[in-house]
């Protein structure tokens, strides 16, 4: 393979047939170029999706009570399930290792008043952990902490829009705002990358809200994040366990889909990744079909080359060339053209991707690129393709009868 004479011959053939070599090489290079670009595009879409979901922590689970749809354990169906503080404690204590952050949520509405400015806003009671779960960004002041929750402190953090409504340009942190007539001290202001509506919210310790709005232990939802090192299977398995214990606790049939809703972000991700793997498969398929056209082109040219060189092959055989050596020569030549032109296509695609890839950053499409493993796979495919392209011509060449080849006098 590393014989100087063989390479000399290959280079000679290629040099003497520049146009032919270029045209065949082009088809393979083009095929690899398209294949890489397709894969990079799918990668770009995948990146775009991932970015869109980055707003909330991706290892989040929301647990919501619902209304049963099946009779179970002596209860009729259509029973409304209500979560209470105990449920929060129960989950927290049941999965001490699995859960990273956990917060209950209590939903209310409030009429807020500061001096002469008033407005109506959603008012949520949460635990201090909720800041991480929701990825709330405090621009000024602080989030409330566990002590605030424990003391049922009348403190609140308000969204950027709320601050603009009530305070205009005035500094809000430290001021008192009346929510339904009760004064709360504003300790922080937050923004949310997700949407403007989220910035119209007001958060306060859940204990404070439960005490002052109906003196209740009820909660509307439990939000939590689990161990971020879990892969998809582990994440789904965890949410299943969570659902099971909550159904058992509230005596809901295990088959009942409506009694409790456990919503895991990972499932949404699962859907996206299966979607993009289908796209991936399609682009590999299309790329391969184009590549096959290129391979056939090279095979075609090799057959032609053999035809042209029949006499030379005959002479070689007369001088003692073994069929094996002739096959070697032809295979090496086709593999060389395939691999070389494929590499050129690969490098072109790579250059284009590294030049324009990082500049593309739209919601649905971001930083298209290919991984090293794709490049290595493509290389292996190219070499195999080259051998395949040369195989039939090589066998044809090996079967050249010297007597026939030399007979034209």
């Amino acid at each position, binding site marked *: 393979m590393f014989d*100087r*004479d063989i390479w000399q*011959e290959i280079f*000679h053939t290629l040099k*003497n047939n520049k146009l032919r070599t270029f045209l065949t090489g082009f088809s393979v290079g083009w095929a690899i170029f398209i294949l890489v670009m397709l894969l990079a595009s799918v990668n770009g879409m995948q990146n775009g999706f991932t970015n869109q979901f980055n707003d909330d922590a991706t290892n989040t689970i929301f647990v919501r009570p619902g209304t049963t749809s099946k009779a179970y354990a002596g209860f009729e169906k259509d029973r409304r399930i209500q979560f209470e503080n105990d449920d929060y404690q129960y989950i927290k204590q049941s999965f001490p290792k699995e859960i990273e952050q956990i917060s209950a949520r209590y939903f209310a509405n409030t009429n807020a008043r500061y001096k002469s400015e008033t407005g109506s806003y959603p008012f949520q009671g949460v635990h201090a952990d909720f800041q991480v779960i929701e990825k709330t960004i405090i621009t000024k002041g602080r989030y409330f902490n566990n002590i605030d929750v424990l003391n049922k402190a009348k403190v609140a953090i308000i969204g950027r829009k709320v601050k603009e409504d009530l305070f205009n340009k005035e500094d809000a942190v430290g001021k008192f705002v009346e929510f339904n007539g009760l004064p709360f001290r504003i300790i922080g202001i937050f923004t949310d990358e997700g949407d403007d509506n989220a910035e119209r919210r007001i958060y306060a310790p859940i204990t404070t809200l439960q005490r002052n709005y109906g003196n209740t232990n009820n909660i509307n939802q439990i939000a939590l994040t689990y161990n971020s090192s879990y892969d998809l299977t582990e994440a789904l398995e965890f949410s299943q366990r969570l659902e099971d214990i909550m159904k058992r606790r509230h005596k809901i049939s295990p088959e009942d889909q409506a009694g409790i809703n456990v919503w895991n972000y990972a499932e949404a991700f699962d859907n996206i990744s299966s979607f993009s793997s289908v796209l991936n498969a399609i682009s590999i398929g299309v790329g391969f079909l184009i590549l096959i056209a290129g391979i056939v082109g090279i095979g075609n040219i090799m057959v032609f080359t053999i035809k042209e060189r029949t*006499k*030379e092959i*005959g*002479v*070689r*055989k*007369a*001088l*003692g*060339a*073994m*069929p*094996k*050596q002739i096959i070697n020569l032809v295979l090496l030549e086709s593999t060389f053209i395939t691999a070389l032109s494929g590499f050129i296509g690969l490098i072109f695609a790579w250059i284009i991707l590294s030049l324009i890839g990082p500049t593309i950053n739209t919601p649905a499409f971001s930083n298209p690129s290919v991984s090293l493993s794709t490049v290595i796979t493509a290389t292996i495919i190219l070499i195999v393709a080259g051998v395949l392209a040369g195989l039939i011509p090589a066998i044809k060449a*090996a079967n050249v*009868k*010297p*007597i026939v080849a*030399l007979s*034209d*006098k």
Partner: protein
Amino acid sequence: MIEIKDLHKSYKMGSNSLHVLKGINFTAEAGELVAIMGSSGSGKSTLLNILGMLDGADSGEYILDGVPIKDLTETKAAQYRNKFLGFVFQSFNLINYKSALENVALPLYYQKVARKERQEKALNYLDRVGLKEWATHLPSELSGGQKQRVAIARAMAAEPKVLLADEPTGALDSKTSYEVMDLIQKINDDGNTILVVTHEEDIAHMCKRIVHLKDGVIVEDKKIEQVRAEQYV
């Protein structure tokens, strides 16, 4: 050196077959210079092809330097050709993109001789045919006679037992023909066995023995007084 017994060969031409060689018996000792003559269709080229293992016989025996040649696979035939035989063709059959030196070195390459040794040997043989200065030239830069001398050097480079020349002067004018024959005679003087297929009387008379073929049988086999080509050069 060469021993042939009752050699038959026929070709299928559509529905009927053409009996080309009809029982050839022939022996050649080492160091002989034999001209095989005959008109076209006499079977002389077929005989040479069989001797050259480029074609197989239908029946009969062929023993080359004590080795029975039969049931050849492609690979085996290639090995035997490389080891036993050197070919000189009418149309030279040099590889046009290789220099004279590379052409001469080619059979050595198939003998797996190391590159350096190959080059030295090839240059040595080019020197013997008087073309040392032309070593780096391509065949297209050589005259017909020079090409044939390169081809002879190539055939000799593998140090074959027998040199088979198929109309070696067929494409040359008479002056260069004699130059080539002079070279062949000198190689023969060194003790090499050479078979020359020709239909030219004067070329045949520069050999030591003439075998006449007609319609697939040997009609005449006689030793002759060799005419030296040197005097015409």
